[in-house]
């Protein structure tokens, strides 16, 4: 059986797997952004340094839990399917986005903030109109890194019934079909590379616009 006919035959399955994979990835990264960016901003303005250390410690700790284990832990809590998969991967996205938001805000030139305050920007305007735009390249860098990782890790989500490209790999393993395994694996790799290229381009555009070099904090 040629590769072409195989792909043709299984196009429906591959399409669904890809779709599921994208849903898992995008949902967990979006959730990560919604939680981590405001949290990062709060930490910048938080005066209790111990709290910052605690939050970063927990976010770091989440990163160290093996993904298979995390998925397994979530089953008794959230059951199986899409939901626990998205939650698990969201937990991984917290650290890179949080760290980069925090660093991005910290990197804004203090004299820029001083002049903003002195000429009458209130606190909200300083965050939204000065610090957030200037931090965007940093934040985008965190989003890019975490998205690429999550695309890779999402292949495991199939083990708790969330589907995705991992589904092809697991089926391939069960039925000893190499072409299925390769399709699933290659699919995830190509998806990761394309996403990296696209988000990398967005990051460069933002860096150009906001005149800052982004320094990525790797996950």
């Amino acid at each position: 059986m040629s590769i072409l006919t195989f792909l043709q035959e299984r196009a429906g399955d591959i399409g669904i797997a890809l779709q599921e994979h994208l849903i898992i990835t995008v949902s967990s990264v979006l959730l990560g952004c919604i939680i981590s960016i405001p949290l990062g901003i709060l930490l910048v303005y938080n005066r209790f340094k111990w709290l910052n250390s605690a939050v970063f410690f927990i976010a770091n700790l989440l990163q160290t839990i093996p993904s298979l284990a995390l998925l397994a832990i979530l089953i008794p809590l959230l059951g199986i399917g899409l939901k626990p998969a998205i939650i698990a991967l969201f937990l991984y996205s917290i650290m890179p986005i949080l760290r980069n938001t925090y660093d991005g805000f910290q990197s804004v030139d203090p004299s820029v903030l001083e002049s903003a305050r002195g000429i009458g920007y209130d606190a909200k305007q300083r965050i939204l109109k000065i610090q957030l735009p200037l931090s965007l390249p940093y934040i985008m860098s965190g989003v890019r890194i975490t998205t690429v990782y999550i695309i890779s890790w999402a292949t495991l989500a199939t083990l708790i019934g969330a589907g995705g490209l991992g589904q092809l790999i697991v089926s391939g393993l069960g039925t000893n079909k190499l072409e299925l395994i390769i399709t699933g694996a290659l699919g995830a790799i190509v998806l990761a590379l394309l996403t990296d290229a696209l988000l990398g381009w967005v990051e460069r555009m933002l860096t150009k616009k906001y005149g800052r070099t982004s320094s990525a904090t790797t996950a």
Partner: protein
Amino acid sequence: MIEFQQVNKVYDDGFQALKDINLTIKKGELTAFIGPSGSGKSTTMKLINRLITPSSGKVLINGEDIMTKNPVELRRNIGYVIQNVGLFPHMTIGKNVAVIPHLKKWDPKKIEPRVEELMRMVNLDPEVFRDRYPSELSGGQQQRIGVIRALAADPDIILMDEPFSALDPISREQLQDELIRLQEELNKTIIFVTHDMDEAIKVADTIVLMKDGEIVQTGTPESILRHPANDFVRTFIGQKRLDGDMNDGIGIDPESIRVSTVDEVMVTQPATVTPNRGLAEAIKIMSGRKVDSLFVVDKQRKLLGIVSIYRLLNQYGEENKTVKDIMRPIGYQVSPGTSLPEAVEIMSNARLTNLAVVDDDGRLVGLLTRGSIVQHLNEVYPTIVEQFASNLGEEA
């Protein structure tokens, strides 16, 4: 009019930054706050737009206590320029200038012409600069934008916190001149913080001299130069203008200024030429340095002689001659450490326009000129000049 009434500022750690400040700043004047670092000059200025809140006492603007006003609103009505410029790097120059009118919700149709008007005021063509980003401008151009950004909404009061300190000397001079020109047109109430006495004298109508959180003396530049209130002011004026550094030696003994040595007064890089240069080359050096004579020194900077423009022109036809063939020996010289009065006496007795300072190994280390002496006298003004004037008075 801005009034400070018995203002104190004590920080949480117990440090008293300001002690009992009472001050009235006149409307339409440029008032310079000057003092060494830590004197409280910047703190005092920041009370005006509530960037700093006093621990006790009141600040009034046109008779109204500023604590009764919304700080954000207050700041939008007071221009603010800082040392590090603080332009917003992600906005174009045009947008940067327009930020305060935008914050004050001006009609957008009014903002655009205002931006152009302001940019022309500081000779930056809006067509060229409006769409550029701050990083594409030189330091001097950036601070011009910083100044017009503060002027944009036409505030009555402008606060400037060491606005020109970070600039190179040429840009600094230019911006000082432009500020003076703008102020003649606009007559704003400007508070100008600086640690540079020359700058304060140049731009200010009134100088407020501060030290350790207290006001030491207030007055016009002229009155402070003529009647320094105490030794601190005297040394601050004198010492600062001697070596350009205000943080050290505040406690310098005024006596030591009076017995200056030639080392402090001399020009350290007089125009020189090496002995094997041709005559045309020597003339070129003279015109470049704008002098009428050159000291001839060898590679070890040993002083060999002097050539004047007259001698050079006389012998100019002789193409094969070099500087060493036509130089004259040096008649008078002094060694480093010679006191200024001694050197001046030599110069006046021998009717010299300048006097070489030569060390024990015969090396030229500097040159005393009439110009450098006048400059020095001006620097230690009023100490010497006053003494001189009183001496004259006694003789008469």
